[in-house]
């Protein structure tokens, strides 16, 4: 018998990346790419409401701290750069892609699109904008964030 009476760990269970990939693929096969984007666009403002509020109040520093926390927990290889009014996140080795490739999980054809749609939804809700250029096979991307001047 074994027990786990109390845990204060960060609950970093990387297999969830594989489950997310399966979920994204399931949605796309059921409802098409538009359905996938629709889900992500509706989901993001709810799940990331605290981040949206933080970004609205404190600006890009809130987003920088978010990424620092995420990539520290997931042990990702990344770099953050703040130039004037633009925050740039360069991911050299994505923890999600890395884990799925290492364990042989199927990776959804448009897996990395979730980063684009979620980033855009979060930023739009907070008055910011985002863009991403990614190489899914390589597990790398460059994400940029800036305040929406319009």
């Amino acid at each position: 018998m074994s027990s786990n009476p109390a845990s204060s760990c960060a609950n970093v269970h990387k297999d969830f990346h594989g489950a997310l990939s399966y979920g994204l693929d399931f949605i796309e096969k059921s409802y098409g790419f538009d359905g996938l984007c629709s889900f992500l666009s509706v989901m993001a403002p709810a799940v990331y409401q605290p981040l949206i509020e933080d970004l609205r109040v404190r600006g890009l520093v809130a987003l920088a701290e978010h990424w620092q926390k995420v990539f520290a927990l997931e042990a990702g290889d990344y770099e953050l750069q703040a130039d004037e009014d633009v925050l740039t996140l360069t991911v050299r080795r994505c923890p999600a892609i890395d884990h799925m490739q290492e364990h042989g999980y199927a990776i959804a054809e448009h897996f990395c699109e979730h980063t684009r749609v979620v980033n855009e939804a979060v930023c739009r809700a907070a008055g910011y904008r985002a863009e991403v250029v990614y190489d899914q096979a390589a597990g790398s991307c460059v994400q940029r964030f800036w305040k929406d001047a319009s």
Partner: protein
Amino acid sequence: MISCTEFIWVYNELFKFLEARGGEAKVIAFWQGISENFLGNLREYVEADGLKGMYRYWSHTLGEEGGRHVMTLYDDSFIIDMHECPSAKLIHESGRVAPYPKYCEHCRWLYPPLLRELGFDADMDIIDCEKGRCRLTVRAHRESAQHAAGE
């Protein structure tokens, strides 16, 4: 990237999205798909080591996920008593998203069907979803248990 630490909320929202688009049957189809396509690791552990393989599999996954639970391994059965499921707790206590009412049902569709396919009796009793309490009971068939015990 959606962090794996944020996945549970996304999972909850995914269930709601699928039910809104395709009804409960679509949600169940998704859970069945996860069971059939994404639990290869559990299948390998159980095919190799039976009940002991289950113990090893959940020692790893529940160890990473956290929460409060007790696992019991007998010669002929394996039981997880979940006292505080980290996933259900996050959904019901964080206040970040409206909980999918049948959130805990996913475990009932993910694990017992696979374990039955591998030759075990399996029951998932959801005791209290909001409190994150449930029990998974797996029993080896009599012949398998006798073989494992060297009888």
